């Protein structure tokens, strides 16, 4: 496979190209589609939004790590959580590669302790609490991806929609585990 970073070796190279219009062939290799052109400002905007998505995935990965090691979950639930965490790692890797290819610097993860504080892990007392938190985060993530699609460049719409679909799949499983009824109205997310 061609080295996708060879054409766009640094953000400076990317953003200083004459005419502010760039070929995005390299990015197309990351997300598997043909990409046309975008302005430098649009690219910077995409980098900023994709980095927020990376931060979201970092937190999701950490949340599942905290849950899996909490001692509050049955082994079968831990297995499901680890599988979902693997999906989030997959999202992170795709997003990191996209940001790097655009010439940006991917958002870095915080410490597990900081994530634990931010999601108030100390308030989790049993398996239901953990599942409820996971459901809130997954529902929110599905909505977040759907809500940011219009702000992203066209080239990232499909991948963001795919990630929203993954998050909604997770939410459905978690809602079922918690015994939530199936919503009656259509358009459950977004």
């Amino acid at each position, binding site marked *: 496979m061609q080295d996708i970073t060879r054409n766009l070796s640094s953000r400076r190279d990317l953003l200083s190209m004459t005419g502010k219009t760039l070929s995005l062939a390299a990015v197309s290799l990351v997300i598997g589609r043909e990409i046309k052109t975008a302005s430098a400002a649009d690219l910077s905007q995409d980098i900023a939004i994709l980095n927020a998505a990376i931060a979201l995935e970092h937190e999701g990965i950490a949340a599942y790590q905290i849950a899996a090691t909490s001692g509050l979950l049955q082994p079968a639930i831990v297995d499901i959580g680890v599988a979902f965490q693997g999906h989030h790692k997959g999202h992170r890797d795709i997003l990191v590669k996209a940001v790097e290819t655009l010439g940006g610097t991917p958002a870095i993860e915080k410490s597990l302790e900081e994530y634990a504080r931010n999601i108030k892990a100390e308030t989790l007392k049993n398996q239901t609490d953990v599942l409820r938190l996971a459901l809130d985060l997954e529902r*929110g993530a599905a909505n977040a991806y759907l809500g940011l699609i219009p*702000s992203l460049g066209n080239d990232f719409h499909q991948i963001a929609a795919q990630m929203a679909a993954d998050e909604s799949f997770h939410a459905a499983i978690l809602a079922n585990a918690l015994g939530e009824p199936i919503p009656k109205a259509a358009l459950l997310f977004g």
Partner: protein
Amino acid sequence: MKRRLNIMLYVCAVLMSGEVFANDAAKSEGTVPMQMISEGDSVPPNAVSDEQRVKNEKLYRQRCGACHALDSNRIGPRHRDIYGQKAGSVSGFNYSEALQNLDVIWTDVTLDEWLKNPTAFAKGTSMGFRLRKASERKAVIQYLKSLSRYSE
């Protein structure tokens, strides 16, 4: 005699009507939805019923909860007391340059524009999430307003 009877009936009527008013007052506490109060009334204009507040909170969690919390900085800044404050001013949060340079106070109007299309409001922001429905923007703003000591 007839006059005394009339007075007694009058007194009874007054006492009964007082009881009715008292019952009405009791019913109006807590669960009966309140309307938004216009400016000039004694109740703050951002007062909402408990029922509406619960709905607003649920929507806030669904739409904003992936990235925001009320009391901790996560992917986005914490939201308690953000209404009425300057954009980009939450301590401890690492804002984008776009937000650092944004000279805006968060009000009903500015929050509505921001939530409608944040990248148009502050080009370069890392918040790409758009809240498409005006009714949802209104509910989220109402919720943020109800949680802010700077909402007056």
